[in-house]
């Protein structure tokens, strides 16, 4: 009888923690749900086809997010093109090539710290370096490079963690067959870690798409009624990179711009744009989960 009492006493603590844990979880989840629901309720009515195909306007009812979502897409594209190769290469180097000594330790600590630097600091750095020093101006290229710097630590850390989860036995198996380091990285390390790396990249991108401060710092326009030149051209060489140096705006700045207007109609626009932005972020995270599932299906140790 005593044993049963004792078990029950201990199990009560078990149940207590389960309840506390659930409450802790709900604080976060419910807060987000409430914010999201309010934004959706306010903004939903404003979302139609013309909202996506119109430039901003002085009249709230005619204003749209065309320049903002095109800008966001192009900036994200630039960010990915820069951050992915640099981040993955750096991660692979640190895990597979670098010797363990105080220099690598120092680099490691720095990378971890960089992930915690406030984004406005990246904005200031970019303003000095990219915009003025390199003369890239207040362009999509400057913004893409700035956000690439911002998410570089995320990509590096994700790459390293994905690589670290590969058992040493796999590496030894490859080396024992006479493979070089690069062959081992190319044929084993990269394919087997690609799921983790991709997840890291997308989470980094999802963070970058919502960044406002550094983009404002380098001087993105808040009101822009034209699109950057198209990357595809009708005449040879068909590809154009002029869009890289074009002025731009992005989704969060468009939102910010609208929320600072006194008219209530613009607040509705802001809510609608916020809703679209959250959906974009959720879609990216969903893609990350799906890709991870797809890529991990065939990999077991």
């Amino acid at each position, binding site marked *: 009888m005593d044993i049963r009492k004792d078990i029950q006493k201990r199990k009560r603590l078990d149940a207590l923690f389960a309840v506390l844990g659930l409450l802790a979880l709900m604080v976060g989840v419910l807060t987000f749900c409430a914010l999201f629901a309010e934004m959706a309720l306010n903004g939903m009515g404003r979302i139609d086809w013309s909202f996506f195909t119109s430039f901003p306007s002085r009249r709230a009812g005619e204003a749209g997010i065309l320049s903002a979502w095109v800008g966001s897409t192009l900036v994200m594209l630039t960010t990915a093109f820069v951050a992915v190769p640099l981040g993955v290469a750096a991660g692979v180097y640190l895990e597979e090539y670098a010797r363990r000594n105080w220099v690598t330790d120092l680099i490691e600590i720095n990378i971890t710290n960089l992930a915690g630097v406030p984004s406005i600091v990246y904005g200031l750095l970019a303003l000095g370096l990219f915009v003025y020093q390199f003369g890239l101006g207040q362009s999509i290229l400057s913004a893409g490079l700035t956000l690439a710097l911002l998410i570089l630590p995320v990509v590096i850390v994700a790459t390293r963690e994905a690589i670290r989860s590969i058992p040493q036995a796999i590496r030894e198996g490859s080396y*024992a067959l006479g493979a070089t380091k690069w062959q081992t990285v190319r044929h084993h390390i990269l394919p087997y870690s690609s799921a983790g790396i991709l997840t890291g990249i997308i989470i980094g991108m999802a963070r970058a798409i919502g960044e406002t401060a550094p983009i404002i710092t380098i001087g993105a326009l808040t009101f822009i009624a034209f699109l950057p030149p198209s990357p595809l051209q009708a005449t040879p060489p068909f590809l154009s990179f002029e869009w890289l140096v074009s002025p731009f705006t992005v989704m969060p700045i468009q939102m910010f711009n609208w929320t600072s207007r006194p008219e209530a109609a613009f607040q509705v626009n802001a809510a609608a744009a916020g809703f679209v932005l959250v959906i974009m972020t959720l879609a990216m995270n969903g893609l990350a989960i799906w890709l991870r599932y797809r890529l991990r299906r065939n990999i077991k140790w």
Partner: protein
Amino acid sequence: MSAPDMQMITETLVAKAEVRNLDFYYGDYRALKGISMPVYEHQVTALIGPSGCGKSTFLRCFNRMHDLYPGNRYDGQIVLQPDNADLLARDVDPIEVRMRIGMVFQKPNPFPKSIFENVAYGLRVRGETSRRRIEEKVEQALQDAALFEEVKSRLQEPAYNLSGGQQQRLCIARALATDPELLLFDEPTSALDPIATASIEELIHDLKTRVTILIVTHNMQQAARVSDFTAYMYLGEMIEYGVTDELFIKPKKKQTEDYITGRFG
């Protein structure tokens, strides 16, 4: 065993490799102490000894596995015949050594790729691109590893669908596909059940007509069953080396006798 017996048995044999006064250091720790012994061609040589005696460390010197990690140092020579090449020489690239000497690990470690790609990997590393030659080699290696009949209809399936024993035979096929001169086994059956163990042992026995074999085992019965020569190691030293039957029936050293009779270890 008396000297004339050993002489009689080894007279007709050719040494595939000769270990000469080998020391090995993990940093400052001296893990192997002055080991010398021959490895005869087309024979199975077993390394036995209690855990931590350095037998795996010794085995991993043969394909320079220790070069993958910092702070390791070899002293002495492992001379591979017929070209009299010192595998441990500074100017010898470990990759070259590993292209001549295959290895099978303790736990089956197939790559998360198809059965076919696992066996073909060594060939791909060497830049072989002819689809026909790769297919021939893969089939031959799977035959030699006594696995072909079981997997011939599902070569494109992931290797992880195979059972543990099949995975280990796949790893053997993977090592055989590139025609190694010497094949190293690091306790190849320690993760397998008795039936799979028996099939691997049989395979090792059959393979010696093709390749010279050096096997580490913690299982003395296994050493007695599969090997022609046995070396007993203790605390990084080679205590006794000899013909397997002799070493197990009348060991020369008291230490060896204590170990194989189970009084120690």
